[in-house]
């Protein structure tokens, strides 16, 4: 049975002639898991807000939206609130109350459920989602992944029949993101809840989805099973979006059925014969740019140490990336390198000088630049142009961002914010660039551009901390894992990712045992003689 049906939907925001949605048609059956894919700014979020009556923005709307056969106009706010669950991107902003239990009760309280029913349902839901261990906590103490799970659980307390999720994993690390996605899959298969999910990471989502819709310029341009759609989009610009296995299939002659998961990718590759070996390039050891010697750090006197004797050496001009799970101390380590926090034991040495003895002036003028996780904290002014200065403005114009110079930094998309932040920092002419999660919330097009930019910065030493293994594998000269407050000695990424079994890229998982040292899609293609 059709649960959601959208016919010929057109929408433009009030005060603007531009049609954000232009004749969009989409039909979703009950119990389906549908993934919506579209580039940033294609109108996905607008579509979601139009489906959810309470969130409908001001503007001109034409066409029809039917939820369970009922026209949106006739749907009462209560029916919409109870029938359609909605989860957004930011784990931080969606949580309303200060305690976990209250957040779980919030939805039901709004709908006026009796107290006994609320407490029964809260108990049930917190068991199902595994929230019970932190049930009594303050919501401030939760990690990003826990917060997002709490939001989902809170939405599920009223058991909506349609669940809409707008990039729910964009701000989570890959492990938390995978956990979140598998919870959604569980809801779909165990409870039969219809899911409409918008997601950039097709790698993880395609193998579990029933259908995928690709949205372009306010319309659905492709709609069907993941395999069908992947085959269709493999020719155009969306090729980059495909899961690694499908990319290999696409470039290697397209024989047989298109593989989507790592397992299918391995099967596909095993039928091929490799032609070239991947050679591991020699480590170049230059001048030492940055050094940590036996660094210990903790935030509060009584807390546990975050860094426990961390050692690392970064050579001048290289891109050094550090991966590791949440809470492994990566971001803290970067703050120590940036001189924001000071170790209580050990030394951080930057180009031969101990950071603890350097003045701010010496440390930050043409020396170190730090890109925080939230690039918005770099901006204090109301206009992008004021932040960038004359030189920065001309760079931004060259990068095709001239239109954005008069906007407010908060109005930019994640990718644009990241770019502006980078321009601002490069303006300071740093010798060392420290980046904290530079790919958080970026789609694969912005990611690729960022990778290219970083590689082109000759002479600048870059230390980056990331959850994004694919990104680390493709840009870095050396790559290492942070675990238990220590930094493991860093080898080349080819060694690092091919020796790791769990913490590694999809390409390395696909190529394991068949093509040693291949960790990126390009390397596998090279190995099988398909360079282009």
């Amino acid at each position: 049975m059709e649960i959601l049906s959208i016919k010929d939907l057109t929408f433009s925001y009030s005060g603007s002639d531009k049609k954000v949605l232009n004749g969009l048609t989409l039909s979703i059956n009950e119990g389906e898991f549908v993934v919506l894919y579209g580039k940033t700014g294609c109108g996905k979020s607008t579509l979601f807000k139009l489906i959810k009556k309470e969130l409908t923005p001001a503007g001109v709307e034409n066409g029809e939206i039917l939820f369970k056969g009922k026209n949106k106009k006739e749907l009462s706010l209560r029916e919409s609130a109870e029938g359609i669950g909605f989860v957004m991107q930011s784990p931080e902003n969606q949580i309303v109350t200060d305690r976990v239990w209250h957040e779980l009760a919030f939805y039901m309280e709004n709908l006026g459920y009796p107290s006994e029913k609320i407490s029964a349902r809260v108990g049930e839901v917190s068991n199902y989602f595994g929230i019970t261990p932190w049930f009594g906590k303050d919501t401030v103490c939760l990690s990003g992944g826990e917060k997002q799970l709490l939001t989902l659980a809170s939405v599920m307390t009223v058991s909506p029949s349609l669940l809409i999720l707008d990039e729910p994993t964009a701000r989570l690390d890959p492990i938390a993101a995978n956990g979140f996605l598998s919870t959604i899959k569980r809801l779909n298969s165990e409870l039969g809840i219809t899911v409409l999910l918008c997601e950039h990471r097709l790698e993880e989502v395609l193998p579990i989805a029933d259908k995928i819709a690709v949205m372009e310029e306010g319309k659905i341009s492709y709609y069907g099973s993941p395999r069908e759609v992947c085959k269709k989009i493999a020719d155009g610009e969306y090729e980059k979006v495909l899961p690694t296995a499908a990319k290999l299939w696409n470039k290697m002659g397209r024989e047989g059925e298109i593989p989507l998961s790592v397992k299918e990718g391995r099967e596909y590759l095993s039928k091929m014969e490799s032609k070239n070996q991947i050679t591991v390039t020699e480590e170049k050891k230059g001048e030492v740019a940055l050094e940590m010697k036996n660094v210990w750090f903790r935030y509060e006197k009584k807390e546990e140490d975050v860094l426990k004797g961390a050692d690392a050496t970064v050579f001048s001009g290289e891109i050094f990336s550090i991966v590791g799970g949440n809470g492994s101390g990566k971001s803290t380590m970067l703050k120590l390198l940036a001189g924001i926090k000071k170790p209580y034991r050990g030394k951080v040495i930057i180009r031969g000088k101990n950071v603890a003895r350097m003045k701010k002036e010496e440390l930050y003028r043409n020396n170190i630049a730090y890109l925080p996780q939230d690039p918005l904290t770099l901006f204090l002014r109301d206009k992008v142009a004021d932040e960038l200065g004359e030189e920065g403005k001309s760079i931004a114009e060259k990068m095709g961002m001239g239109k954005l110079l008069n906007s407010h930094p908060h109005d930019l998309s994640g990718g644009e914010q990241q770019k502006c932040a980078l321009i601002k920092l490069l303006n300071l002419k740093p010798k060392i660039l420290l980046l904290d999660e530079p790919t958080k919330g970026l789609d694969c097009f912005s990611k690729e551009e960022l990778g290219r930019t970083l590689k082109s910065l000759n002479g600048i030493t870059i230390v980056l901390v990331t959850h994004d293994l694919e990104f680390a594998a493709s840009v870095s000269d050396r790559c290492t894992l942070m675990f238990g407050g220590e930094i493991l000695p860093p080898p080349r990424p080819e060694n690092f990712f091919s020796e790791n079994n769990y913490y590694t890229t999809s390409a390395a998982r696909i190529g394991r045992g068949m093509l040693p040292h291949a960790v990126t899609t390009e390397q596998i293609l090279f190995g099988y003689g398909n360079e282009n």
Partner: protein
Amino acid sequence: MNTKEKFAYAALHPLTVALHLLGQIILGMFIMHPVFVAISLFFAVVVCFFVCGKSFLKELKFYLPFYIIVALSNPLFSHSGATPLFFLNGKPITYEATIYGIVSSGMFLSVLLWCRVWNGIMTEDKLVFLVGRRLPKIGLVLTISLRMIPRFRNKWWEIREVQSTLGDFAESGFIAQIKGAVKLFSALITHAMESAVETGMSMSARGYGLKGRSSLVLYKIRPYDIVFMCGNLFTFVAIIVGIAMGFIDYQFYPTVTPVECGSGTTGMFVLFAMQSALLVLQAIKEEAVWKYSRSRI
């Protein structure tokens, strides 16, 4: 968080505890009688130990000097009273002023300690719950603000740290620093507004603003709470009546009234001791119930 507190007072309804502590604080504030103050102080210390555990010993390091300073300051500055003990700089240090200092400082300290007990037992969510029962909107505003305060405090530090690497805070001097703080504050406000838009959407997506909002009742008033409250109410009213009847009148100046032990006054002492001991009895009772149930396993 102290485990002992949780076990001993988790069984009581927050309203029961709140009313009891309010009673203690009110009586403690208005009755200046050495025996009353001693009773109040003694039980406040005992309950503090129940609530805070051993860490209260550390807090005593602050409370004791406080007590001594307040107690000493009265005879040093007030010279009324009929019985001079000795002369300091030609000013008499009187027996009455000394006693008054000791008692009033004890009264101060006992009220302070009962407030400490309040802080230990009445956690934020219990308070929000109490307010929210009667005034749901204010309850919601409270819980939202309780969530926002730590969030924005963290954001403030985050922005500050990042800005310090850009050299914006390198300027020294009072005016420059104030200017920097103003800029930072406006950035924080922008940030708060932006995130509030999304929070608002998340609220209305979950049906906030529909008619007939209910609220989850976390605590139920059990028969035991009623017994507790009735006992408390009885002693409280009896003591108020006793005050009105002049059983516990006491004078420090010009001469200290000797402590009487008439039946009315003694009755008052006993009633007040019973009331002050309620939380201690509760903790002992819980312990006994636990031990007894264990012994049967």
